């Protein structure tokens, strides 16, 4: 059995007009579920993943054999309690874990799309994933939740479908990608494009993918997910398996070795072109502009109960940007709660074992069920 056969997918028949103008039809959307959908079909939670995530949010990812990216959050008795809730997570379009992406075969050329794949947006991702509600015959979700790019999808989902979810939990995100965020993403993209193996996106997936460029992109991005204090405490100036400096460009410091490891692990599971497309979608995300400069308008028709969470040491999507969403929601008269969680783990806090965060999400979901 092909390993990719372990990926569940729906083929979406309904045409989707993308923001770039192109229309896609009969495209695959890969998904995974946890827990059971109850008879009333009112216990479903749609989880949106971040830049490098996928549908395997919990348990063991059958492709990478690693723990799902949100294993701390999803599972029996956990924050997203699978004894109670039916959790759905799907791979975004543009991704590389089974959903329609640049690695798919272009029927016109019989080769991978590569950079012939249409540029997609957060709006497109959300519209594609909405088809899962039809597929599971769910009229209204209990919640939509996600961190970082997942949080952006939460905001877009409620803006597009104001009354399709009872609650919404955007975590560590923004309503409008900042110049700094775009700059970091551009750094990653340029690093991929500078790799000779990238070949304008027409690389062969099996033989010579731009691994070096993608690894450097990941290393740079990884730094932005952590905090200075967290890095200092974990690594400081500790040396990697040696007593003294090597006077060379080997990985003398533990932090160097750690980043190199993160880069090398990443290329095994992620496609460089997907990285380009998804970071582009994040950069194009500007819900404020979508609603002509008034973010409140995005939520004015919604009865969804919001709960926004930020982290003290997150400098990539800082508390101030999360609070702008709170302010817009208040201005539109929406029901919104907010808390900033104390953590020195940086932006990555939402993916890690931060008990205060896990408890908060659990309390909110349980109290509103």
């Amino acid at each position, binding site marked *: 059995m092909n390993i990719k056969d372990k990926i569940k997918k729906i083929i979406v028949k309904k045409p989707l007009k993308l923001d770039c103008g192109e229309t896609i039809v009969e495209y695959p959307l890969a998904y995974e579920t946890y827990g059971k959908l109850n008879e009333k079909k009112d216990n479903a939670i749609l989880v949106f993943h971040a830049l490098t995530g996928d549908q395997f949010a919990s348990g063991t990812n059958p492709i990478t054999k690693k723990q799902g990216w949100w294993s701390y959050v999803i599972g029996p008795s956990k924050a997203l309690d699978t004894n109670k809730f039916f959790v759905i997570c799907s791979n975004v379009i543009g991704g590389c874990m089974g959903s329609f992406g640049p690695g798919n075969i272009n029927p016109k050329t019989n080769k991978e799309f590569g950079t012939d794949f249409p540029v997609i947006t957060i709006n497109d991702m959300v519209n594609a994933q909405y088809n899962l509600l039809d597929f599971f015959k769910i009229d209204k979700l209990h919640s939509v939740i996600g961190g970082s790019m997942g949080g952006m999808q939460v905001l877009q989902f409620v803006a597009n479908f104001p009354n399709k979810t009872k609650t919404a939990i955007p975590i560590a995100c923004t309503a409008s990608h900042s110049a700094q965020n775009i700059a970091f993403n551009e750094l990653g993209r340029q690093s991929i494009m500078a790799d000779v193996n990238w070949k304008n996106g027409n690389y062969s997936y099996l033989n010579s993918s731009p691994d070096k460029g993608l690894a450097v992109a990941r290393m740079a991005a990884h730094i932005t997910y952590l905090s200075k204090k967290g890095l200092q405490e974990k690594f400081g100036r500790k040396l990697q398996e040696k007593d003294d400096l090597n006077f060379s460009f080997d990985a003398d410091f533990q932090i160097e070795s750690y980043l190199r490891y993160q880069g090398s692990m990443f290329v095994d599971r992620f496609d460089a072109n997907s990285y380009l497309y998804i970071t582009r979608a994040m950069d194009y995300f500007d819900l404020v502009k979508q609603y002509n400069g008034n973010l409140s308008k995005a939520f004015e028709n919604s009865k969804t109960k919001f709960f926004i969470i930020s982290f003290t040491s997150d400098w990539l999507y800082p508390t101030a940007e999360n609070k702008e969403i709170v302010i817009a929601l208040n201005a539109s008269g929406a029901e919104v709660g907010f808390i900033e969680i104390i953590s020195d783990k940086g932006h990555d806090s939402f993916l890690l074992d931060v008990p205060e965060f896990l*408890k908060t999400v659990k309390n909110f979901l349980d109290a509103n069920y």
Partner: protein
Amino acid sequence: MKKEFQIISELIENNTRVLDVGCGDGILMKYLKDQKKVDTRGLEISKKKVQICISKGLTVIEGNAEEDLKQFPNSSFNYVILSQTLQAFYDPEKVIDNLLNVADKAIITIPNFGYWKVRLDLLIKGTMPVTKNLPDEWYNTPNLHMCTIKDFFNFCSKKKIKLFKSLALHGEKISEINNLNLNWKNLSSELGIFLIEKQNESRNHTLS
């Protein structure tokens, strides 16, 4: 639920929208939500207390009244509650102004610095008063602008704020405050509870 909250909840009509500023662990909010079908929101500075509110299913924003009140649109609530926190703000005057912007009516309670035990503490002992309602020492109190019931009364008249209801609380005993008994209530009460409303400016104009 403490007597103060009982009195506040009696001042609030059913099926209204209420913002509780400094909502603490949400006891009053929960009561209003469950018993009076009130659509409640809270603003609370303590992360720990916000957590408690969330676990009760209450909608609370972690924030500070001095910075975060202005994000609510004008008149977006029927009532705003400020229980025993006015004295802890840098700029209480501005906070009251903002309270009356976000809601039609504000319910403000103040620990009365004119209470006889407080006065006696200072008079006899010559030290800063420490009482049930003012439990902190001078060096660790969050209170910056203490006032008396009479001060608040005078403040409202000076600022042309309409006093809808003025109540004095001593232990479990509740009484109305008026111009005639003001000095006595100012001496005998631990807590003042006021329901205030912004004087309609245009109406003021036609009167003068």
